[in-house]
Structure formats: structure tokens, C-alpha cells
């Protein structure tokens, strides 16, 4: 081992003597060749479009004719537009209520299913499976179940209860949407929390038991505080994911009835863009990016704090 290290050192020294400049240049060229394709593709397909979005958001482009520069008019319109404001309310409601449901449900079932038995891993998989299915398809499935002649309404009809407009009542549609979101997403949190729970040292639980703590007290005072950092990260991950909700809205409610389930992403793509108001759509998109980035930065900050807490 020592000989090897010595050999490497000698070779490196010889290389430097032989021609510092040219070796370095070749080194840089090789690095560029290896990282270049990824950097170039990512720049053209992700970074440049963000710049283009900012540019287009300052125009009145409609997708066909020449774009005319209109300054900040789109942004001013953004804050005056009732559709836009309403879409934010819907998005915030989905994000906040959905996150509470997903994290709460995830935590409850994680505490229930944290053991390493066969039946527990079956139930965890059962809670998790919607996570691997496209949101678009889950939306169509639930639309077929909750629709006017769907399974739920035909069962209610047998009990003599008239058709309930799960997807066609302005208030109920949002509730149904949030239900499907929580149903589809809480299993991910279950898995995340179970992984964290399994690292809680058994000594702590035994200590709590010696002190005479009930199961509820142990969970509340010992177990949950131990996994609090993971819960925080999951909360922000769910929030960031939900303010982007789009696919599920397309298939479950189509933004209706009367725009009551129209999220911001849905507004951008299905209304502004489809209505050939491209300039306005990109202004909305830029605004969504800013909000999304702010939330994502929050994740990073929280994660750093968590890492520091873990290290210290």
C-alpha cells in the first residue's frame, strides 16, 4: 500500500515536470468530454426554457403571430385576474389539506405498521401501490367510482339516498379531489416514516415502558419527536408536490364544476395555454416556478438543519 502511494506520487510529480500546461489541458478536455453532453442537454432543455419563459412572459405572444413586447402587463393582469386568484386558493387548499391528510395518515399507519412482520409489509405495500400508478389513470378510476352512475352512488341508491354529486357539486368536488390525493399519496409517507421509526433505539422504548408510559404517551412524547426531522421533510415534499398538481385534475374533475377544482398548473396549461394566451400562460408559469423554488429552497434549508442536527 505504501509502495503504491509512493508510485502514484512519483508518477504525478513526473507528469507535472513533463509539461504542466499540456497535462492540465488534456485533463480539462477529458472532463469536458465526460460532463459536456449532460451539461449541454440540460442547459438547452431546462435552463434555456426558463429564460425563454421569462422572455415570453413579457410579450403578448399567441403561439402563431409575432410576439409583441408588453412589459409587465401580464404580471399586472396576473394579480388582478379572479381566475388566477381563485386557482391559488384551490391550489393552497389542496396543498395544505392534502399535506395534513397525507402526513397525518402516513404517521398513523406508520406507527401501526412499523413492525417487521409479513402482514405489516403486505399492508405497507397495499398503502403504497397507488404511488407507482400514473395520477392521470388514478383520476379516471376514481371518476368511474365516484361518478353519477359509479359504484358509490349505485350503492347509495340501494339505501334510498339520491345521487350525490361527488364530482359535480362545487364544494364536494374539491373534497373528493383531496380525498383521492390523500388516498394516492399517504402510502409514500408510511414507507418513509416506517424507515425512520425502525431506527428509533429500542432502549428508549424500554425506558419509557419502565417509567410507566402508555403506548399513546410513548408514541407522542418519545417516538414522534425522534422522527420529527423526517416528518418535516415529508411535509415540505408533499407541499411542493401538491402545488404542481395537474394530471389528477385533468382526469378526475377537468377543473370543474365551474372552475371549483382548477389548480394553478391546470389553469396554465388547460386554460391560458390552450386559449392561445401563451404570453400570459408563461407569466403564470414563471410565478409558479418562483413559488415552487421558494418552497424547494425551504426543503433544502430544513434538510441542512436536519443533517447538522444528526451530525451534532
Amino acid at each position, binding site marked *: 500500500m505504501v509502495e503504491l502511494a509512493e508510485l502514484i506520487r512519483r508518477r504525478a510529480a513526473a507528469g507535472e515536470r513533463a509539461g504542466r500546461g499540456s497535462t492540465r489541458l488534456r485533463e480539462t478536455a477529458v472532463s469536458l468530454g465526460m460532463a459536456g453532453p449532460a451539461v449541454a442537454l440540460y442547459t438547452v432543455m431546462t435552463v434555456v426554457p426558463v429564460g425563454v419563459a421569462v422572455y415570453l412572459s413579457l410579450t403578448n405572444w399567441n403561439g402563431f403571430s409575432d410576439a409583441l413586447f408588453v412589459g409587465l402587463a401580464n404580471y399586472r393582469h396576473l394579480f388582478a385576474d379572479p381566475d388566477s386568484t381563485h386557482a391559488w386558493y384551490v391550489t393552497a387548499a389542496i396543498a395544505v389539506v392534502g399535506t395534513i391528510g397525507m402526513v397525518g395518515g402516513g404517521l398513523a399507519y406508520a406507527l401501526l405498521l412499523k413492525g417487521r412482520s409479513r402482514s405489516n409489509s403486505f399492508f405497507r405495500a397495499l398503502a403504497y401501490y397507488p404511488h407507482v400508478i400514473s395520477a392521470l389513470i388514478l383520476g379516471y378510476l376514481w371518476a*368511474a367510482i365516484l361518478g353519477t352512475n359509479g*359504484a358509490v352512488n349505485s350503492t347509495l341508491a340501494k339505501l334510498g339516498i339520491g345521487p350525490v354529486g361527488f364530482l359535480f357539486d362545487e364544494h364536494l368536488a374539491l373534497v373528493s379531489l383531496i380525498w383521492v390525493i390523500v388516498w394516492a399519496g399517504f402510502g409514500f409517507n408510511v414507507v418513509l416514516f416506517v424507515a425512520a421509526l425502525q431506527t428509533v433505539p429500542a432502549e428508549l422504548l424500554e425506558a419509557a415502558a419502565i417509567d*410507566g408510559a402508555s403506548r399513546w404517551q410513548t408514541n407522542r412524547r418519545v417516538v414522534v419527536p425522534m422522527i420529527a426531522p423526517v416528518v418535516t421533510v415529508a411535509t415540505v415534499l408533499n407541499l411542493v408536490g401538491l402545488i404542481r398538481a395537474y394530471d389528477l385534475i385533468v382526469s378526475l374533475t377537468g377543473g370543474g364544476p365551474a372552475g371549483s377544482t382548477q389548480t394553478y398548473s391546470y389553469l396554465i396549461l388547460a386554460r391560458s395555454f390552450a386559449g392561445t394566451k401563451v404570453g400570459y400562460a408563461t407569466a403564470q*408559469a414563471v410565478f409558479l416556478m418562483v413559488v*415552487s423554488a421558494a418552497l424547494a429552497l425551504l426543503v433544502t434549508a430544513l434538510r441542512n438543519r436536519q443533517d447538522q442536527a444528526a451530525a451534532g
Partner: protein
Amino acid sequence: MVVQTETEATPSAFRAPESLRPRRRRRPSPLRLVMLGLLFVAMAVPVYLLLVNSFKPQQQIADNPFGIPLSELTGRYLLDAIESPQFNVIGGYGFTVFLVVVVDVLCIAMAGPAAYVIARSARRRTRLLLLYFLAGTFIPGAAVVIPVIYVLRAVGLVNTITGLVAHDVASTLPVSIFLFVGFIRTIPVDIDHAAAIDGAGRYRTFWRIVFPLMRPAVVTVLILNSIGIWNDFVSPQMLLSPGSGHYTVTTAIYAGISQYSTDLTKVFPNLLLAVAPVIIFFIYLQRHIVSGLTVGAVKG
């Protein structure tokens, strides 16, 4: 002396008395049974309805969605869905698998070497590249797809498979590179030096020596990207117009079902066809998929 007292003290002081120690096999509490029952009903019923109603005529689905009318079960609707000219499910599978494979291969081919350079570089500038890529995870897909159309139009790739692939690969790069960099940093750099002494260049060192050691990270990235691309709806819908004639499973379902949403004999069989491959994969590769998706989401 100290050691002795400790070893003697440990068992009696730190172990709870028999009565307080949580017993290994306890009878499930009623609360647990109720909650597991609710979970089972909520999660299993939609799949049951999907399965059963794919084989029933419309009247039966509407009147008795939960029932299994043995005399009326038929594979006709499933066959119709497979052969339907409006919704070409076999073509949808084929094109989606093609897309997944091409994107996976290109993503690994690009993200691997880039991550290697970033992970092994001592220079600050190169390391900052990681942050540059990570910034991409902040950008919501639905928001960036409109300017992507603009860029693709400028380079003449709008409504082409190449354009869609380019966008999809770019969208998988940030998280893939992030996971790879993290993993490569755990591989001892001595291995690289040894390869260099044996005369291997950097490409060779990476593909022949380092890459084979990255198997767990590669599996994670493959699962993450494959499921992401398979389920993606926004990109294929916006970047490949229906006129192009290419449908993924999701865009084909969208095109088919938005037209026939009230005909449940079309809805259920088509959804079953769309879900079946994913569910089968999930059952077989459950552990890999769950850990891969979880690691990808949390670390990315």
C-alpha cells in the same frame, strides 16, 4: 473493576421487569383491527372494482358494481379495448417501453460520466456543477413545458420523438446525477489511481472500474426514471401532438377515455390494460421499487 460492575449492572438495571416489557406476540388491539380494516377496504376496493367491472356489461356495472354475475362475465370488452382503433393499447405499450428504454440508456450514458467528473474533481468550479443541475429539481414540469415547445420549435424538433426524448432525458438528469455523485463519493478513489497506473484512461476507468461498482445507485436511478417516464402525461401530451400518431399509455388513455367517459365498458377495460403492467412489475420488484422511489424523492 469498572468494566465488571457495568457488565453486572446492565441486565438488571436497563431491562424492564417482565410485566412492563412489551411482549413480542400480543393480541392485536381492536383499534389496530379497525384501522387495518379501513386501510384494506380503501385500498383494495378500487382495484377490485377495476378488475371485476372490466368483465361486465354496462347495465351490470351500473346496477351492481360489486357483484360478480358469473353468467354475464365476458372478456369481450377487454378484447374490444385491445383491438379498438381509437385506443391502440398495444401500440401504446410498445411506444412507452421504447421511450422508457431510450431515455434510461441515454440518461445513464450522460449522467454517469458527468457525475464521475463532479464527484472526483477537487475544483470548486466543477463541484458547483452539481448545484447547477440540482436547481433543475426546483422547476415544475407543467410550468416549463410551454417554453420547451418554443425551444423545440426553434431547433426544428417540435412534435418529433427526438424532441420528446431530449426533453425527457434532460428532466431525468438532475436527480440521477445527484444520486450518482453521492454514490461515487463512497467509492475509494484509490481504485481510480490503481486503474490509472495500469494505464486506463478516465473513460475506461469510469466505465470498466467505477460503473460496475455503482450497481445499487444505477438500479435506483433506473427504477425512478422508468416509472417517471412510464407515468408521465404532460410531456408526451404537449410535445407530441395527436397528429404525430405516437401515443404513450397515458396519452392514449386520455384520448380514448375523454371521448367515452360515460361508457364504463370502455373505461374499465382500458384502465385495467393501462394499470396491469405497472402492478405486475410492482408485485415482482416491490422492495426495489419502494426503496428506489423513496430514496429518489427524499434525496432529490
